[in-house]
């Protein structure tokens, strides 16, 4: 398969191009190199931008479909940039039994996005994980790396409000 003939690549900034070229050169002959390179890209950007995938497809002479098969197979990879504030709902058995489902629906309702999505203003990213190992705190949320336990749907609005306020003072300063 011949790789992509242009459009987005031309518009791509030089750094992205350099990055990909360096990564490809570095991992060229290694086994499982595609995954390694995608790791590098994600480490650098926090997600794997589409433009990087397109360029990578061309550099490695593989179809874009292949790259997306890998990207979507491993939950580790992200296809969109995360929000500034990350909210994770634990969906482990304990949390599930204690009502994590209701937490998730409340968050989805309040933020107007679904599990795995980011709000349009990029302020919030919402996701679920299997189990964060804090079953004693069920149902648990992780908000910007901080674990908050024993939540009910009623706790959600104040949590979001607090973050919004912070952002606002930030802006005002």
């Amino acid at each position, binding site marked *: *398969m011949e790789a992509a003939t*242009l*459009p987005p690549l031309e518009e791509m900034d030089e750094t992205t191009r350099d990055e990909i070229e360096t990564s490809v050169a570095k991992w060229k002959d290694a086994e499982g190199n595609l995954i390694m390179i995608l790791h590098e890209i994600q480490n650098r950007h926090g997600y794997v931008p589409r433009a990087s995938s397109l360029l990578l497809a061309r550099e490695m002479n593989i*179809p*874009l479909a292949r790259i997306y*098969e890998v990207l979507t197979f491993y939950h580790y990879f992200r296809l969109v940039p995360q929000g500034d504030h990350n909210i994770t709902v634990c969906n482990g058995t304990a949390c599930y039994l204690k009502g994590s489902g209701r937490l998730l629906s409340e968050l989805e309702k309040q933020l107007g996005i679904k599990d795995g999505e980011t709000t349009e203003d990029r302020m919030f990213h919402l996701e679920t994980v299997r189990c964060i190992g804090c079953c004693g705190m069920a149902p648990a949320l992780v908000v910007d790396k901080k674990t908050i336990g024993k939540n009910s749907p009623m706790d959600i609005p104040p949590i979001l409000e607090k973050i919004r306020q912070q952002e606002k003072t930030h802006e005002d300063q």
Partner: protein
Amino acid sequence: MSVTATINGLEVTVPEGTSILEAARQVQVRIPTLCKHQDLFPSSACGLCIVKTGTGKKMPRACATALEEGMDITTHDAELTEVRRATLELILSNHPNACQTCGRNGDCELQDRAGEFGIRQDYLPRRVTDLPCDDSTGSLILDFSKCIKCGRCVQVCQEVQNVWALSFLDRGINTRMAPAGDITLAESPCIRCGQCSAHCPTGAIVENDETATVWEALRDPGKICTVQIAPSVRVALGEAFGLPPGTNLTGKIYSALRRLGFKAIFDTTFAADLTIIEEASEFVARFVEGKGELPLITSCCPAWVDYLEKNFSDLIPLFSTAKSPQQMLGALAKTYYPEKTGLPADQIYQVSIMPCTAKKYELERTEEMQSSGRPDVDVVLTTREFARMIKQSGVDFLNLPDEKADSLLGEYSGAGLIFGNTGGVMEAALRTAFNKVTGENLPPEGINITPVRGLEGIKTATIPVADTKVRVAVAHGLANVENLLLQVREARDQNKPPPWHFIEVMACPGGCIGGGGQPYGVCNEVRQKRMQGLLDTDEKMALRFSHENPEILQVYDEFLGEPLTGKAHELLHTSYQPRPIYQK
């Protein structure tokens, strides 16, 4: 090496490596399947084909398990039926209950299985994905909710066509078929060949049905509806009416078209002869007179054209500039035909019946597809849609009398007819090119150019023409073409003589007879029979050279002038452009 075993007590001997499923067929035992397709490797996705092997408690899948010496296979008993039924119910629980409004209603493998197993009620609550349909291409409609994840389309698109427009994303129960990189199909590298739709067992991928548009045109008093029908349609349409593949129904098709209300019946095969005149002239100009590059590459398959424009755009100068027969006929139907008949040109409406979903896209491929000043062809129906129209019309198709096409743009040669087969364009072109170079026709025993016939993926031959030798190559199924093109590119980049002088490519395996819009159930056996249907007719025809078709001579004489120049150039030729492979 061969192995001998028993299946339901019947002894069977097959070559080593034969699957239990294949072996069972040989003793007239039908094991139910859903995911396995004869063209493709087993994906073992559905689990319907389980059998007992006589040893152990396992139930291996017959499609993916080789028959072994001494096996004692049971294909049907109460327990197997029970397990299969449960499996089928699970599949149905993720499928919409939507047969009445589905493009596959009455011709669907999943519906068939549900019918055979006598499923009469939902035992499990249905949970169906609600992803929106993808109708971005105008040729195909993807309805993700009807996908049973058998993997046929992905395998066809990646392995047979080497296009990689479709893939499986995510995993586990979230696995879904999707255009490459989660974009729309039109933004993906898809070339609209429709092979995915021809192989899909359900209504998850179907052609964009435009029969309603045609009915409307037929009822519109302001339109003079004319129609053309492609060579390969006539030997496949019968399958939709229960006839064996390869049955040539030309006469009945003409008669049905008249009853549907078409005012003039043209035959694309006439235009195939015309394409040959233009293309053979082009070949002779390049080969003998050195005007233009070699190899000359055929361009009558729009899926193939799209593939080259997307993936090998540096080779565009090698393309024949001759339009496809569909577009040539459309151009004449809207210029020559009204001129000859005095009918108002702006009222002529042209419907084209094709084996192909990509032909729907070809209508708008470039501005030259409107060389008459309007769309040269207004709408394309695939063979499957045409069969549906006949069934809607109330015509008792199989008992119709045979009729003839209209005498303008309707006469054709056997050479034009075999255009529908892989190798057929090459054979037809060589018959005429030989005459152009030597001034004589091939001798009767040389008319059949057998090395370019058949289902081999790549066929090459050296054909003596006068005191030179013409090296030709033929490929079908696009996975076969990359290697040829790389060799051509290498020679070209190094200024070496080309490995071949003339290359024919058709995107679909078998050529147009195996097109993505043909009746369901294609496999090599069916392709072989459809091809034979065209070859047998060619063999019986008195007229076997495009350049001897009297209507062709007449149209040049009265209207077009000389090949490659003037009006012929204006109406019958086109251009190509590089296109991005991913639009997003």
